């Protein structure tokens, strides 16, 4: 009571005109954010919410959707095709170190100015600009049973393998082709990262008697850690969201379910089975899984940076 009588007259007198009128820039700030916010809500949040809503329905895409609760999710848990796709996804994720270390190694070689470094820098990046359909078509010809690759192997007395038609090699083959088509981007990012590794550190290590392997292991890689982690996050997301074209063109998911990955499965459920609700349920699971992976990786990165 006492406080009120003390402060009320003071604040009334001093804050006129009201704060909003005196500091319009505070509100102007919201105005600047508005377009970006509107786009995110319109293009990301709303479709996501719509997807979540559809995933709770049984829908043929034409008639009114019928609400069925979590039935789609329950059905997915018992769907052997979904199970196979999940296993393939984990196999794919287990290859992450290759996806990251391969371009890192090549970038280090280029950075250390191996002969022809300028040429390799361009050559490695070249596949990145090709569309996955074109890459798939090229490798179909190259890898087919009576194709060039098997012909080349026969020179060394190695028997022909049906790389894409054999369940035991198909997924690995598609992964190798995807690595080939995308590692150039990693090389580019690592090269720009390597440019920031202080030269005097490398020189000091050399003076101290370190050989090339030691310089790379004890100086270059620790200095590059944040970049390596960044590439790991981006690559993981890329693995789960950008292999559809290649699978569609190269294997059609086969043989059996050998090369089914989440995107391809969602497309089959939506496009061939005409079950938007079921496809949406799969999408929501994939979304949560990718979100969780990205969250863990980003947390890991920020923890390192804080150190």
């Amino acid at each position, binding site marked *: 009571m006492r406080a009120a009588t003390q402060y009320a007259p003071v604040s009334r007198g001093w804050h006129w005109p009201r704060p909003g009128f005196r500091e319009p820039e505070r509100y102007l700030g919201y105005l600047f954010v508005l377009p970006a916010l509107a786009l995110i809500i319109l293009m990301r949040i709303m479709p996501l919410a719509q997807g979540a809503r559809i995933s709770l329905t*049984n829908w043929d895409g*034409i008639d009114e959707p019928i609400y*069925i609760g979590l*039935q789609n999710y329950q*059905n997915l848990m*018992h769907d*052997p*095709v979904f199970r196979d796709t999940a296993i393939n996804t984990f196999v794919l994720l287990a290859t992450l170190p290759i996806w990251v270390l391969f371009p890192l190694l090549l970038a280090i070689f280029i950075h250390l100015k191996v002969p022809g470094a300028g040429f390799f820098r361009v050559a490695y990046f070249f596949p990145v600009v090709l569309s996955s359909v074109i890459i798939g078509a090229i490798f*179909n*010809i190259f*890898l*087919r*049973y*009576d194709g060039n690759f098997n012909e080349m192997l026969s020179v060394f007395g190695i028997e022909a393998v*049906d*790389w*894409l*038609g*054999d*369940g035991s090699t*198909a997924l690995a083959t598609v992964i190798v082709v995807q690595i080939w088509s995308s590692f150039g981007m990693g090389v580019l990012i690592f090269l720009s990262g390597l440019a920031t590794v202080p030269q005097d550190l490398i020189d000091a290590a050399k003076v101290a008697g370190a050989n090339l392997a030691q310089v790379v292991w004890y100086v270059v890689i620790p200095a590059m850690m944040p970049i390596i982690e960044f590439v790991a996050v981006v690559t993981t997301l890329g693995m789960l969201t950008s292999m559809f074209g290649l699978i569609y*063109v*190269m*294997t*059609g*998911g*086969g*043989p*059996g*379910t050998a090369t089914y990955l989440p995107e391809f499965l969602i497309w*089959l459920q939506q496009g*061939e*089975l*005409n079950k938007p609700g079921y496809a949406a349920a799969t999408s929501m699971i994939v979304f949560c899984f990718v979100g969780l992976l990205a969250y863990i990786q980003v947390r890991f990165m920020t923890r390192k940076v804080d150190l």
Partner: protein
Amino acid sequence: MIETYVAGFAVGFWTEQDRERFIVGEMDWTEPQLAKPIELWERFAREDWFKKGANSLETYTDAVNEFMRGTAAHNFALISDAANWRQFEDFMGPENVGVMLPVAVGVDPDEQTGRLPAGGGIGYAVTRWSPYQDLAVEYLHELVKAEHMQVFFETAGAIVSNKNVDVAATNSPGASKILGWLDCCLEEHHPIAFLNAEEQQELRRQGSLIISDDATAEEAVAAIQSVKETAQEQAKQ
């Protein structure tokens, strides 16, 4: 392409009763009408009837690749993008282009019964939700009129189902013969067209697994049957 293969069996060997039971979903994959073709498919694969490597891609892409490379002129149910009578006649002369009835075993060459069925063509449909259904139907009636089919027949070389087209105008012995045979060897609608999407997908997957020796016919039949049962259960929910 296993579904086309099974469809061939369905057309050739099933009774009318089999067809009806299949269409309403009462035929199980374990029954010989469906299991037998898959068993044979496995036997073909084990005895190397299939060209190695043909399983690596979607069947259609496979076939097209074979055609482009000139290593095959036909695959299961797909004939290479072969020229039609009109294109052949253009460069060979009408008198050098022959036509034949579908394959038959032990049947008189001119006999039109007892032959393998042949089919094909363009299908039209009007969507249920179309606001102008009458207009669409009217358009289709217009489209298949003899005078319009005549153009399609003469310029594109299509064999049209409207028998009122004027064959004399083309001066093609081959085309007139085929038009005269239009009633021969007709097939019923492929029963496989009534297969639901889930079973069809599983059939394809199992077909490819059998070729790559990752599944036996027995396992394939069991897997498709299980998909069928699950789909039927879910449809009831």
